[in-house]
């Protein structure tokens, strides 16, 4: 036994002198880094800045809607604001948030690899993201953008706002997303260490893998759509412009062929994060691992078949509409399976309400509402009434903010100690999560009622009948903003005041918690010990390191280190 203790001392007893944050210094060491962790951190800073910007725009919008008439934004400025809010949130923030920021950091470590397969492509993807964002900022400076984030033709051909700059931004961001996805697929396929079989992968990796499939398959269609729209504006191509014989509905098909799967680019990684959080913070093996893993793939594939439900009122033929409606319902099943499995995981668990767990539980609540309100939108007779009203606005905010953003925050709190090696103030984190939860519901729940009462979306001025709902919503938005500010404050303060984080503060058994916090440049200082990612009995507390370490009993050995297998390349 004493040899075991020695092993432990040797493996986990000391923090390495250098970690990825300190191993080299200077701006250039960050700007030209090929380290996936640094790229992840740069992405994190980037997407959080974009989120702050778009969030401020949202607050301005909600202020303006406090009264039915004009308060301080003209119609034109209101239109610009909501367009930029939507476009920046979707293209610049949500799509890269979990895959590119968290995923870049975690995926290779979780997999047991030293880096992603193509580190240079990874860096290129980050700079493309910067470039795309730059074009968005450029469009804000030059006459903004007032087409709505969907760029529907022919309005986007007619308007005098900076559609070309924004479309260029979308085009470039699209390639950033494609490269990230491509990198992840190859990494998961070829970089798994021996013993890491497909079904030993943590569920977050399944989710990121499914997401990457969508990113590679759907985004090129957005790219060509953007290119055609640019050509339409510059040259007058006449493919989408009815004045030149084009078909504006074709644009909608192209756009949603990407943008509906893009919804799953946003939500699938969030589901993966939640699978991790629920399991770790209730110290219980995830319930129905295979069902969750397959449901990720199922969602990714079904997501490609339902884009037409955005066009139920565009005058498509009835047969097409019926088929799309039926397919839309089919996506509900894998999503529901995941929710049931998460709740079942809690059963007989050992649940602690840590900050990440608070976010995970709010995710189940909010995603539940977001998902269930998708049903009347997928049902044809009710959708005709609810389409393009605030009901839709509320629905997708419940999914994208209540789902993706909440999961992103949960994940951020979960992996923050890993990223920066500091523990945050737990009480502050929980308070932030609570206020975010309350503020969010206050903001978006009234919008369901407005929507079913017939308040169309994207209205700068509205009927006084809806004023009370808008006012509740505005107050909620401010509350939400305060909650997010608290969360941000807690995280930032931890960098200065937080106590040192051990390698594994949560008793998680996935691989990223075997390396030190923060990890070293090569991720693992020692050979990885491959356990089942949800086997919490293979982890024990070690007071010398102040955290959890793998159990190293000889008896456990054959189980925890499987036979070597050739790397699968399928």
């Amino acid at each position, binding site marked *: 036994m004493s040899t075991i203790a020695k092993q432990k001392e040797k493996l986990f007893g000391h923090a390495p002198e250098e970690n990825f944050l300190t191993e080299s210094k200077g701006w250039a060491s960050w700007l030209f880094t090929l380290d996936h962790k640094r790229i992840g951190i740069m992405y994190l800073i980037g997407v959080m800045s974009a989120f702050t910007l778009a969030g401020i725009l949202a607050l301005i919008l909600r202020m303006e809607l406090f009264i039915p008439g004009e308060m301080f934004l003209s119609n034109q400025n209101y239109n610009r604001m909501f367009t930029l809010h939507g476009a920046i949130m979707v293209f610049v923030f949500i799509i890269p948030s979990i895959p590119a920021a968290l995923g870049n950091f975690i995926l290779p470590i979780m997999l047991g690899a030293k880096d992603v397969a193509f580190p240079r492509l990874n860096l290129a993807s980050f700079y493309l993201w910067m470039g795309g964002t730059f074009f968005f900022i450029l469009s804000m400076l030059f006459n903004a953008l007032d087409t709505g984030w969907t760029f529907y033709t022919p309005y986007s051909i007619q308007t005098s706002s900076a559609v070309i700059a924004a479309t260029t931004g979308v085009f470039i961001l699209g390639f950033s997303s494609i490269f990230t996805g491509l990198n992840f697929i190859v990494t998961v396929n070829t970089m798994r260490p021996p013993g890491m079989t497909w079904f030993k992968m943590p569920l977050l990796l399944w989710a990121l893998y499914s997401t990457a499939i969508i990113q590679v398959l759907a985004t090129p269609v957005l790219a060509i759509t953007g*290119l055609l729209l640019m050509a339409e504006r510059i040259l007058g191509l006449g493919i989408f412009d*009815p004045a030149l014989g084009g078909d504006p509905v074709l644009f909608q*098909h192209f756009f949603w062929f990407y943008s509906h799967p893009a919804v799953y680019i946003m939500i699938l990684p969030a589901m993966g994060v939640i699978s991790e959080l629920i399991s770790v913070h209730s110290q219980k093996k995830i319930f129905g691992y295979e069902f969750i893993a397959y449901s990720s793939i199922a969602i990714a594939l079904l997501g490609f078949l339902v884009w037409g439900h955005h066009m139920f009122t565009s005058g498509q033929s009835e047969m097409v509409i019926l088929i799309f409606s039926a397919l839309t319902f089919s996506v509900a099943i894998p999503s529901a399976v995941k929710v049931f499995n998460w709740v079942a995981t809690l059963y007989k668990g050992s649940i602690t309400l840590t900050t990440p767990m608070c976010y995970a539980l709010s995710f189940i609540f909010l995603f539940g509402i977001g998902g269930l309100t998708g049903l009347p939108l997928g049902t044809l007779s009710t959708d005709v009434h609810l389409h393009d009203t605030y009901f839709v606005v509320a629905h997708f905010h419940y999914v994208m903010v209540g789902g993706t953003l909440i999961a992103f925050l949960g994940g951020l709190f979960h992996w923050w100690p890993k990223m920066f090696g500091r523990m945050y103030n737990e009480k502050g984190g929980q308070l932030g999560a609570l206020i975010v939860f309350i503020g969010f519901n206050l903001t978006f729940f009234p919008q369901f009622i407005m929507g079913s009462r017939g308040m169309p979306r994207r209205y700068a001025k509205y009927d006084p009948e809806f004023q009370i709902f808008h006012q509740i919503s505005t107050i909620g938005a401010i509350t939400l903003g305060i909650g997010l500010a608290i969360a941000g404050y807690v995280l930032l303060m931890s960098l200065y005041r937080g106590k040192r984080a051990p390698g594994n503060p949560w008793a998680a058994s996935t691989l990223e918690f075997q390396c030190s916090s923060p990890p070293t440049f090569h991720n693992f200082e020692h050979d990885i010990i491959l356990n089942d990612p949800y086997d919490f009995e293979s982890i024990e507390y070690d007071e010398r390191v102040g955290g959890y370490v793998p159990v190293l009993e000889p008896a456990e050995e054959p189980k925890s280190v499987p036979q070597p297998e050739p790397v699968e390349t399928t």
Partner: protein
Amino acid sequence: MTTADSVDESNHGHQNEFHIHDHSHDHEEHPDGPFIAHHFETAEQQFDSGKLGMWLFLVQEILFFSGLFVAYIIYRNHNPEIFEAAHVHLDKWLGGLNTIILLFSSLTMAWAVRCSQLEQYLGCIINIVITMVCANIFLGVKAIEYTHKWELGLFWADAYTYGLPQPENQNYLLWLSLPFIVITLLSAGLATFYRVTENDFWAKFFLCIAISFLGYFIGLGIAWAVPAQEHGGHSSDHAVHGSDHGHADGEKHEADDHSGDSSGEKSHEGESHDKSDENHSAKTAVPSESVDTQAGPSVDESTVDEASGEVNMGGFFSIYYIMTGLHAIHILAGIVALTWLLYRTLDRQFRKNYFGPVENVGLYWHLVDLIWIYLFPMMYLIH
């Protein structure tokens, strides 16, 4: 230094000997060669990763083009008459010639991959250069095709001026060729310079580049020499006709006036010289007329002048230019990639266990070829 190692040990010795990684060799060469990145364990792993990545990129490329194919199908369904009328302006012999050239270049590309696998440097270089020459021939032929259409006013929908007097002295071809002329002369000059200064490597490199870009001018020559087809010949007659009668100064007619005018492709074919200038303006009236002015908006109506059967082919040429144009950009990207390969091959960087880049550029090149295989019948052959 891998898990596999430790697994072996634990299997054999039943010990808990875990390794603390020693990364002191980080900045040294990978045991499998200088071009194996640190995060890969073996050369095979790197090769497999690169190849899988390339295949995914190609899938992405296909989806990128698929958007255009769908647009083509939809547009064709909406406006079959445009495609009917427009295909006569595409020279299927030039298109066919380009198809053969690309197919041949695919062969030489595959050959180059094989050569680099076998470490036959000379063969590899020759094949890469032939591939680049073919790519340039393709572009040369395409340049002739494009400029011929521009001279006739066969532009995309909004700029479409077919049948109208065209501006004189538009040196489209010269402008298109300018970059090729510059690159050819520059690399020829540099090749000579390095030859004189006895820098053998760069002399060879630039010589190869110069030879490759000469292909462009071969392409121009071939396209010139191919006899104009019946339709092509007809349309050039048409151009002459257009510019002969082109000094129209009295075209002051409201768009709405022209519904009664009779002019059309058919009458062009029969007696193309007795038309008044009014008829020309009738044709332009169609593209400038927006749905605003139509009582009942219909896509079909807006492209055909009902009374005369005159078809505004701008929509077809929009799709034609965007599809072939994007394809040509991919050819250009291919030339850049091939140049990079040329450099690395001349530098003797590839070997038996490291020829992934050649293989991957080869895959890319085959895809570009494949896309043309679809474009050619869709644009040139289907009536």
